[in-house]
């Protein structure tokens, strides 16, 4: 295992300290690193709280700030945070308008957030993200997994919360965006959980894992390494089938790297996906390309298509100022 670390036991807290130092203008670190919160909460605004296992950076901590999350709870690597963390975060950022939890659909995340939701003593709702079309059920979910589409749900909800939308309306919006969003990924290499010290899965030099999860969980099938066009075809095809878009539909396209894939290849994938979408008369109205929802240093990428209406696109375009996403301010 080759990583820039001192000690697997302290790596998470050291990284959080570095993150907090690098972005001290926008975030603050909760006690004992239980959560990252927006430096100055906005009174009267619904507090958006997300979180999940670490190792997917910049998700979620990198999305804390104006126009996106109020707090994010980082769990251990690939391990959901605990209800304590969510409670502490809620206490820190809730200002009277209630809390909206944004949760990726994994058993662990679901159970921990559910416990927190039961224990928190303010009004709250939960939006569950399950955008991964690769598999209907996975080892650790009931139903589809939540993957890169989470970013889109968080961004759009963040903008709506920022302008003052109330809790129930946000819950509805979140569910709608999640429903309009579909993703699928492919891995070329495995990631290595630091404390485990060896790769999560073995994969041949000429193989890829089609439909991989963002923890390196198995996907649809292990197949021979294919060209970018073929990969784009399979990923985008599965997504389009799931969303059943009409010709002329406008979408947001997110080509997301898993951590070990350079921009050169991600943009090449953008080009490949474009060709497939054009073939289906789907119009790409917005783009995001980069490594935003990662699996440590895994090589590979996911494609996310989100069929947004004009109002949702306007929320996507609204100003945001976080460590990893910033525009309009």
């Amino acid at each position, binding site marked *: 295992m080759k990583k820039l670390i001192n000690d697997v036991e302290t790596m998470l807290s050291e990284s959080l300290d570095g993150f907090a130092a690098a972005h001290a203008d926008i975030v603050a670190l909760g006690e004992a690193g239980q959560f990252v919160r927006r430096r100055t909460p906005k009174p009267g605004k619904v507090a958006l709280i997300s979180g999940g*296992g670490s190792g997917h950076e910049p998700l979620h901590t990198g999305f804390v700030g104006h126009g996106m999350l109020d707090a994010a709870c980082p*769990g*251990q*690597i*690939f*391990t*959901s*945070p*605990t*209800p*304590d963390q969510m409670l502490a975060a809620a206490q820190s950022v809730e200002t009277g308008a209630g809390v909206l939890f944004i949760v990726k659909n*994994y*058993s*662990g995340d679901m*159970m*921990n957030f*559910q*416990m927190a939701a039961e224990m928190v003593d303010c009004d709250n709702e939960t939006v569950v993200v399950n955008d991964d079309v690769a*598999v*209907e*059920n*996975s*080892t*650790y*979910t*009931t139903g589809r997994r939540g993957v890169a589409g989470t970013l889109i749900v968080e961004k759009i909800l963040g903008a709506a919360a920022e302008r003052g939308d109330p809790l129930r309306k946000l819950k509805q919006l979140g569910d709608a965006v999640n429903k309009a969003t579909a993703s699928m990924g492919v891995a070329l290499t495995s990631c290595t*959980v630091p*404390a*485990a010290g*060896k790769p*999560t*899965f073995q994969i041949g030099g000429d193989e890829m894992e089609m439909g991989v*999860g963002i*923890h*390196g*969980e*198995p996907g*649809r099938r*292990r197949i021979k390494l294919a060209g970018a066009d073929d990969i784009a075809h399979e990923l985008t095809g599965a997504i389009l089938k799931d969303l059943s878009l009409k010709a002329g539909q406008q979408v947001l396209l997110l080509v997301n790297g898993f951590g070990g894939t350079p921009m050169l290849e991600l943009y090449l994938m953008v080009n490949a996906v474009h060709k497939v979408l054009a073939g289906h008369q789907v119009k790409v109205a917005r783009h995001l390309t980069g490594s935003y929802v990662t699996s440590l240093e895994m090589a590979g990428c996911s494609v996310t298509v989100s069929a947004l209406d004009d109002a949702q696109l306007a929320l996507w375009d609204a100003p945001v100022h976080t460590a990893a996403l910033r525009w309009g301010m």
Partner: protein
Amino acid sequence: MKPDTHNLIRCATQTLIDHVDELTALDQAIGDGDHGLNMRRGALAIQGKQGELAGQSLNEALRTMGMTCMSTIGGSSGPVFGTLLVTLGKHLPDPPNAAGLAQALDAAIQALTRLGKAQVGQKTLLDVLDPVQKLLAKGGEELVKRVRTCAFDAAEATAALDAARGRASFLGDRALGHVDPGSRSTALIIGAICESLDAPATAQPSSLSA
């Protein structure tokens, strides 16, 4: 809390710590590879509370341990083992007996089903808890020994559940032969408890609290 309960906790937590690599490997095969570390983190946290636990009743201690799991483990194991322990703490008669444990385990299984929405047969630790609960409910000769065997066998048997229906069904042949990590942890815990219950009660308390 009695010294032998103290020892029992030490053994049950230590076996998880000792099997961290095996549990990691199991979770890497069909999951995300963190199960060993999760269980070790919880076990160490409980061991760190042995002073506090020593002053508590069995029911209080179970609750404390459950809360510790919930607040330190995270992942699926945190809520699952946390709920298991807290529910046992709520329902177990003190002093415990087989019938009382069977009832408490039944309550725990129900709580877990409500929490995690998994059913028996879907390759989770429920597939160990369920047969163990049934065995305890029936009672009979050499119960401790039979519970131990049952737990380990049930954990092993989760390997076959992949090919059938259930939450891991999409893996098909690829997961066939892989034991469910949480089931293995559960068997290890039950095994350690059974062994320490079967051990000669003459051992010195001082040697039990290492």
